[in-house]
């Protein structure tokens, strides 16, 4: 559905914009974030800011509007913070209000439910959930993903560890279902790239507050014991989506080994330290707008907004059908500070993207590693490739 707007451009320049301008077209995007109550992160530095994800929408909308001013296009974005109880009602409200593009920040199960509610009425872009099942057996025809999948994240780290010849992994996984899914991705990655998981251990989440005053006193005794007597390994790989224990692993392992995965060397879609390929420009633009460093969620929402903006530019004010067709066509590409064009996989709607390997305050490396080739697109060395997909769209 295309919205013709009679109002002036929301983002307006003083000069005339000849060359490309047609009748004004409005693009309306909604971003829905579902905040589930849960325990706090281990570190107060990781506390979620109130505008998590939404701040990326603000920058993405402004970027689209600047281009739109030259194209006779306006962009408006509504952000909605919902709870698990209100998520579906809010989604219905957005659909009834006629939003044709809806970006979601929620877990895999809720993402699938919201996408089903949308049906053919809206294109849904998942900017948070990493579960491979959401791109596989639970995939949806109206669902795209700017968030990288667990398999992409695991493959990105695996390529680097194998490049380092750190082939013997000691895998420690959390006890939550999302941890087990991530651990499964690491098992798959190890097999794919020739690493060996010498042992797996489950770190049970026994509940309780994660932060207590002088909690390190107990941790310092517990973690070495927990990691004791593992077979010889090069690296500890942590699969801790829930954020229960991994941050405590570095420097506390029994053997002096580096930690990677959910702590230590972390595979991530974005880091406020990332400067390559014009990334600094995004960082400064974001920080000026939001007053804080960008997180993965912000970047993934920004990319979702830019997907819409790019399609609006390239289809020159096309309707929703034209927009959708273009986004999934081979002609679509997105520049997102990763040094190469990002495109959608037509088999599961996943945005191909390099993954940053972040070590504290620096980006230590970026995968795919040069040495891992692919017959079609090197980015498809990360994640579930066409022949392996379980998605039937």
């Amino acid at each position, binding site marked *: 559905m295309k919205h013709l707007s009679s109002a002036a451009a929301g983002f307006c320049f003083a*000069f005339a914009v000849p060359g490309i301008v047609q009748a004004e077209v409005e693009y309306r995007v909604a971003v829905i974030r579902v905040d589930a109550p849960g325990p706090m992160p281990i570190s107060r530095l990781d506390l979620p800011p109130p505008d998590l994800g939404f701040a990326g929408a603000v920058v993405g909308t402004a970027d689209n509007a600047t281009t739109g001013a030259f194209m006779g296009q306006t962009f408006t974005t509504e952000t909605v913070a919902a709870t698990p109880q209100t998520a579906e009602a809010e989604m219905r409200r957005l659909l009834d209000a006629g939003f044709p593009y809806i970006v979601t920040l929620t877990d895999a199960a809720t993402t699938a439910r919201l996408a089903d509610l949308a049906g053919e009425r809206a294109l849904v872009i998942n900017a948070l959930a990493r579960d491979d099942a959401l791109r596989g057996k639970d995939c949806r025809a109206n669902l795209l993903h700017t968030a990288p999948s667990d398999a992409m994240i695991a493959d990105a780290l695996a390529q680097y560890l194998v490049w380092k010849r750190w082939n013997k992994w000691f895998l420690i996984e959390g006890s939550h279902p999302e941890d087990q899914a991530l651990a499964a991705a690491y098992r798959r990655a190890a097999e794919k790239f020739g690493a060996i998981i010498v042992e797996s251990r489950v770190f049970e989440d026994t509940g309780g507050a994660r932060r207590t005053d002088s909690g390190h006193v107990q941790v310092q005794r517990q973690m070495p014991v927990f990691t004791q007597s593992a077979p010889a390994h090069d690296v500890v790989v942590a699969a801790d989506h829930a954020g229960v224990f991994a941050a405590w692993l570095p420097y506390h392992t029994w053997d002096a080994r580096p930690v990677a995965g959910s702590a230590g060397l972390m595979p991530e879609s974005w880091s406020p330290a990332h400067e390559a390929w014009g990334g600094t420009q995004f960082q400064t633009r974001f920080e000026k707008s939001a007053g804080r460093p960008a997180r993965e969620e912000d970047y993934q929402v920004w990319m979702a907004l830019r997907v819409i903006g790019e399609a609006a530019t390239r289809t020159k004010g096309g309707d929703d059908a034209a927009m959708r067709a273009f986004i999934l066509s081979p002609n679509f590409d997105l520049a997102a500070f990763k040094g190469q064009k990002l495109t959608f996989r037509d088999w599961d709607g996943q945005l191909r993207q390099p993954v940053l390997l972040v070590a504290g305050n620096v980006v230590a490396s970026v995968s795919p590693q040069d040495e891992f080739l692919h017959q079609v697109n090197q980015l498809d060395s990360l994640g579930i490739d066409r022949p392996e997909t379980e998605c039937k769209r």
Partner: protein
Amino acid sequence: MRLAALACCTALSAGPALADKIFVSNEKGNSVTVLDAASLEVIHTIEGMQRPRGITASPDGRHIYVCASDDNLVRVYDAATYEELPPLPSGPDPELFVLHPSGNPLYIANEDDNIVTVVDVVTRQVLAEVPVGVEPEGMGVSPDGRFVVNTSETTNMAHLIDSSTFEIVENVLVDSRPRFAEYTPDGAYLLVSAEIGGTVSVIDPARAEVIHRITFEVPGVLPEALQPVGIRVTADGARAYVALGPANRVAVVDLQSFEVRDYLLVGQRVWQLAFSPDGRFLYTTNGNSNDISVIDTASGVVTVSVPVGEQPWGVVAVKSE
């Protein structure tokens, strides 16, 4: 220290054979390497700048302008003595710029503020700030000086700006992440490289339309590594040279047919290009191998690579006085 440096280079530049000079900005090295164009020896290193990127010279070859991105200004040097002259205001984070063919004013792309800053190089006053698309980068100027072109990397457009009114007169959509804009000497074509899109758009400036898209293909090189950045057109308008970034090659494009005639292997992550004043040589900055390559434009042979500073970014060559 500075006096000593000056004394030393004055002595050097007073040598008998006054050859052309090549100035290379080293983004990481925070310096400009000066080479004797005949011997290709490093004859001086200018220091005292933060993150130098775009570099150009006044038409008479006497002044060197450098975008000192992290200093948020344009630094100016005497090409003969390397003495630093008063800097120009540039707006924040200047990356690339272009001089009006008359030598004044200077048009600067400010990546962070979505503007092009116009600066009078004599009075050092900002004449105008022109709002453009998101992340302005490439800057070109028509041979008659009437139009200035800016490319915006996230908006994916070439903005044609009237150099007298400082207003945008045309916007031309190109492929993803346009990096560089260069007119042919007769003004008939405007070439715009798209780093992520992997193409060079050939624009008819009169109609403000893309009339051709030049694509690149090198056996054994991943298509996503073919990332066009710097462009230079020969004085006779017959050929364009296009730096292909991480493909480590410079494409030679025939501007009659817009066909790629050759791919020349140079250093790693080739970024910007500059001709020697007589057009016999083309110099390339190779950011990841810390060197420049020299291409003999008559034979199309890469003759030599010369180490410069860390992560060379831009290059300009000037005639000896």
